[in-house]
C-alpha cells in the first residue's frame, strides 16, 4: 500500500487539493463503494450509477479547495454525490428503473425462500423508482445506506426536523406502493385494461 494508505481523509483531501494525485486515488479507493451505491439506488441503473459516480468524483476533485474540513469528508463527498446524481437524473429526464441484476454479495443469506426474497427486493427497487427523487434521496441515505439522520440532514442541507418529517412521509409513500394501496395497483389495472374490447 502507498504512503497515502495510513492518512486520514482530511489530510488526504488537503494533499489532493495541493496536486497529490496518489492522495486523491486513495480517497477514490476508500469511498467509491458508498458513492456508487448511493448513485445506483438513486438512479436504478448500473450505467447511470457509473456515470454519476464518475461525475461525483470529478466534481469533488474540482471542488477540493472548498472542502474546509468542518464536516466529515464523507459527508461532504456524499453531498457532492447526491448533487451529481440529481444532475444526472435531470440530464436523463426520466425516472429511474429498477436494477435488473442483483449483485452477488458476501454475507447476505438467501437460504430460506431465496426466490421469494429476490422477488421482494426487486419489488422494493421498483417501488423506490416510483417515489419522487427527494423522497428517494432520504430513503436511500437513511434506510438503505443506514446513515444517521443528522448526517442525512447535512448531506441534503436541510434541518433535522424537516428530514425526519420527510423520511416519515417518504416511507409512507413507499409503504403504500408496496402494499398495493396506491398507483402500483392502478398501474397494473390500467395496463391490463389496454386491450379492452
Amino acid at each position: 500500500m502507498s504512503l497515502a494508505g495510513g492518512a486520514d481523509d482530511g489530510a488526504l483531501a488537503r494533499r489532493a487539493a495541493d496536486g497529490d494525485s496518489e492522495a486523491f486515488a486513495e480517497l477514490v479507493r476508500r469511498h467509491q463503494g458508498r458513492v456508487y451505491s448511493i448513485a445506483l439506488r438513486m438512479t436504478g441503473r448500473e450505467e447511470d450509477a457509473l456515470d454519476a459516480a464518475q461525475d461525483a468524483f470529478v466534481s469533488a476533485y474540482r471542488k477540493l479547495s472548498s472542502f474546509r474540513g468542518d464536516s466529515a469528508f464523507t459527508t461532504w463527498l456524499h453531498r457532492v454525490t447526491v448533487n451529481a446524481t440529481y444532475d444526472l437524473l435531470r440530464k436523463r429526464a426520466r425516472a429511474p428503473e429498477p436494477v435488473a441484476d442483483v449483485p452477488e454479495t458476501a454475507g447476505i443469506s438467501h437460504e430460506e425462500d431465496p426466490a421469494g426474497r429476490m422477488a421482494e427486493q426487486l419489488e422494493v427497487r421498483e417501488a423506490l423508482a416510483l417515489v419522487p427523487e427527494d423522497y428517494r434521496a432520504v430513503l436511500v441515505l437513511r434506510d438503505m445506506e443506514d446513515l444517521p439522520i443528522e448526517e442525512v440532514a447535512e448531506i441534503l442541507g436541510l434541518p433535522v426536523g424537516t428530514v425526519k418529517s420527510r423520511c416519515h412521509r417518504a416511507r409512507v409513500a413507499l409503504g403504500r406502493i408496496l402494499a398495493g394501496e396506491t398507483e402500483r395497483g392502478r398501474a397494473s389495472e390500467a395496463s391490463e385494461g389496454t386491450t379492452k374490447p
Partner: protein
Amino acid sequence: MTHPDDLLADYVDGDLGERERAEVEAHLATCERCGADVRSARLARDGLASVPPVEAPAGLTEEILGAVDREPRTHEAPVVEVFGGRPRKSSRPTAWLGAVAAAAAIVIGVFVFNGLSGSSSQTGAASDARAAGGAELAAPAGGSGTTSANGVVLQPGHDYDEAGIERLAAAAAAGRLPVPQTSLAPSDEAAAVTSCLTKGAQLRGDEQPIELIQATFDGKPADLGVYRVPGSNGGPERIVVWVVSSRDCSVLSFTQHLLQS
C-alpha cells in the same frame, strides 16, 4: 395534537424516549391516519432493509480516475453552495456542464392540460377519479368557494386532507382540475407559490405546475402544486401533488397518481 410526522420517523426507528413514545402512542390510539401511516412506514423500512448491499463493479477505480484525468486541472473558487442550501449545481461556464444544463431544460408546459383531458378517459385513473368523488373537484371555475386570481386557484373554504389530495391527483389525472390551467396567467402570485413549493418540496425549479392552489390542509394554510411528471422509459407519466405550508413552505403532504401513457 397535529400529526407528529417528525416524531413518527423516530417512533418507527425505535429512537424515541419513554415520554415521547407515550405521547405518540396516545396519539396513535385516536388517529386512524397516523396508525395507517406507521404501518406503511414500517413496511417500507423493512423492505428497504431487506435489499442487500451494492457491490461496486470491477474496474470502478480506474473508470473514475480516468474520468478525473480527462478533466483539466482548474480548481474552482471555493463553492459556498456545497455547504449551504440545496445540493444543486449552479450553472458553470464549462462546456460539458452547459450541455447538461441544456439537456435538463425539460419543459413540461402549461398546455398539457389539453392533452390530459383528451386522452385520460381511457385510463384506470380516470374511472378512479369519478368513483372517488372526482366530480366534487371537477367543478369548473366558480364552483363553491373556488376562484382564480393571477394564476393561483383560491379555495379559501376548502380544507384538504390526505384523501382530499388523493382525489385531487385522481381528478387531475382525469383532466378535471378545479380551474383549467389555460385560463390562468403567469403572475407574481403564481411565482411566489411556485417558489414556496420549490423550496419546501425541494423541487428542481424547472417543473411547470399544471395547477397551483391556495387552500388549507388539515386546517393549516397551504399551497398545493399539481405537476405532471414524466415516467420511466415508455412507462406511465404521473400526476404528483405537493402540499406545502403557506407560512414556512415546509412539506405537509404528497401524493401521486399514475397516468397511462
